[in-house]
């Protein structure tokens, strides 16, 4: 029964990535290599982030919310953006369209994040006898994270790869990218600063990820219109 539960949680955590890959044209154009490369870049970024966190942050004993520390953490969080920039612009991809490139990168990015952060707790915890909602919520969080990663990748590809975008949209694009990039800090603030519980935080994440996905979709579509 508990292995069953683990199976369920694993489906929820990693299923959407697979579904996204197989359902969208990504699979038709065989962009797996790009995703794998993005995942590797994610690993490198995570390592750099880890080193930075260890260097610049004090270890706090209590779970209280310290604005200065959180600000530092948010700054370090922007290393992610740098990693994404590298993945989007510097990696030599096979000749795939921008459309598919950002999706592949976002997907690889989110999948690597899920594997790195959620697989081990899931394996250890969800097979135990004790039932908690935590692992289901964690799976939902992984879904939100997938949507956010793809949105961020989309916005990034708009910023760095697309040259002829409407001038009026540029500030909006940058604001949105900023919001998406600071999302980890925002959730951390909600959890520790406002004392939200895990279910509420996950609900918020799901909601904002959908909103951000919708906005970035619209932006992407708006930028594509003149070229189309």
């Amino acid at each position: 029964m508990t292995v069953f539960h683990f199976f369920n949680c694993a489906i929820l955590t990693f299923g959407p990535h697979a579904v996204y890959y197989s359902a969208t044209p990504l699979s038709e154009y065989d962009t797996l290599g790009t995703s794998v490369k993005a995942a590797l870049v994610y690993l490198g970024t995570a390592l750099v982030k880890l080193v930075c966190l260890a260097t610049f942050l004090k270890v706090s004993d209590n779970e209280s919310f310290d604005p200065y520390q959180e600000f530092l953490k948010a700054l370090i969080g922007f290393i992610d953006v740098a990693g994404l920039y590298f993945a989007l612009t510097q990696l030599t991809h096979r000749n795939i369209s921008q459309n598919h490139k950002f999706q592949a990168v976002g997907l690889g990015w989110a999948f690597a994040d899920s594997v790195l952060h959620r697989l081990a707790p899931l394996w250890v915890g969800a097979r135990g006898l004790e039932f908690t909602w935590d692992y289901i919520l964690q799976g939902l969080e992984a879904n939100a994270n997938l949507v956010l990663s793809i949105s961020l990748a989309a916005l990034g590809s708009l910023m760095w790869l697309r040259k002829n975008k409407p001038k009026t949209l540029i500030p909006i694009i940058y604001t949105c990218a900023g919001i998406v990039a600071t999302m980890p800090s925002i959730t951390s603030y909600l959890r520790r600063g406002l004392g939200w519980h895990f279910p509420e935080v996950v609900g918020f994440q799901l909601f904002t990820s959908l909103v951000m996905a919708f906005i970035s979709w619209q932006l992407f579509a708006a930028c594509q219109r003149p070229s189309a």
Partner: protein
Amino acid sequence: MAQAKPGGERQVLESMYSMIALVFILVACVELCDAATVVDVYRLIQYDISGAPFGSRLANLNHHAGSLHFAPGSDLSRTVLIIPLRELNISFVKEYITQNQPLGGLLFLLPQIFNIENRERAKSNHQTDGEELLKNDLAELEKLLIHSKIPYPVYFAFEDDDIEAVLADVKRNDATGQPATATTGGYKLVVSVPEPKKRASPTITNIQGWLSGLKTDGDANQLPTIAIVASYDTFGAAPALSVGSDSNGSGVVALLEIARLFSVLYSNPKTRGRYNLLFGLTSGGPYNYNGTHKWLRSFDQRQRESIDYAICLNSIGSWDNDLWIHVSKPPENAYIKQIFEGFSNVAEELGVKVGLKHKKINISNPRVAWEHEQFSRLRVTAATLSELSVAPELLESTGSLVDGRPLVNEAAIIKSVKLVAESLARHIYGHEGKNVQIFADNSSLAVNPSYIKSWLDLLSQTPRVAPFLSKNDPFILALKKELEDHTDEVNVQHEVLDGMFTFYDSTRASLNVYQVASVTFDLLLLLVLGSYLIVLFSFLVITTRGLDDLISLFRRPPSRKVKTA
């Protein structure tokens, strides 16, 4: 892509609504649930008498929790009933046990006042009617459990907030009428311990201390000896909780105090009596005083004959005004008369009453109800001083769950000590019938209440079921050391408990309480997840490739055939 957009947007909106709805449903379902709770539990004793099994025969537990509010007629063979003592329905338990109805297990929750590790409770000495009722219930329950063979695990635990919260949840679940089984979730109680093993040849340890009297040069004969004896081990429903503060902790405390008083007297040659004093702390008391039997057998004939008489102390910690001297020789016997008169004289001065009870020994009956009967069987004059007016049955009054520190009154022990010490001293120094107070209050020979209290507290926290006490148990060493302080010569005798009784180990364990989800829930979750993924797949295919593509996905095999054709 551009053509598919308007349709796609509507799809996005629709799916977003459904997603948001899903999120809200999930958030609404979520209660913050506590992690696994761990509770200390004490297992019902498991033992055999001459091969006949008694007590709880299993230790491993892995079943769902249920309460007394279970739906009538439901199958409880895979359910652990949690029964708080406050709600105990003894006839229900009796019915279940005597009719051998299947149960997954039993967990009794005892109020904190019975917790031996709870040092606070000694302070609240006043007893309410409710407590009195609880004690009666518990005593009855214990008797029932000890004398039945129960084919499932039975555990005792103490009430605390964690387990109470679990119980409240279980009750709420039971009130809905669904039995707690694998299909409905709930709580799972897990005790994982190895299979209980037989205690191979349990040892019993007797400790004796000699205080030798003054021997004048002309005396060729051996000095007569007076023995003071108390058995210190216990037997109760839960071996790890059987402290027996009254039976027979009170006797042990009194014996130690008497030894201390006489050691003061005997340390000065001027006040050294012309009697040897023999102090015996015997084990095996609940098992027909097997230890006393072995101990007496180990004496040689001369030594045994030198014993003038023996006073056995048994359960003298909770009486008000009446004590009994139990003897097995007829009251007309000169020695008995002498002992009784000595005691009743002192008792009169102390303002208490001492009665004499005569019970003949039936040599063919293996049952030895009083410790002095072991002496009498070897023709040594002996008497037992006890607050009990009738002989207890086998395994009765030997340290039950009820018999804890609050039951015992220190004042009663002090009075008993005075009674025994004073009458012994008058006999030793030949002051019989005279009104001299040797152990008067406020003198240097006064009974020390704090000594009694500290030993009583120690005994009330130390489970002393003989088969589970090792030879070098710290408690036995402490008793030995205490006697060494008060007497000239201390001997420790290790014997093997005679064959009739067999005991099994694993007396205490940790109970893990898990909140578990049911299989149905997991199946449902799988269904929801499956449909979520399918919806996501269709949604993504439609938005990125269009509806036709999705339909063609399912038509592909026939279309391929057409192509090949």
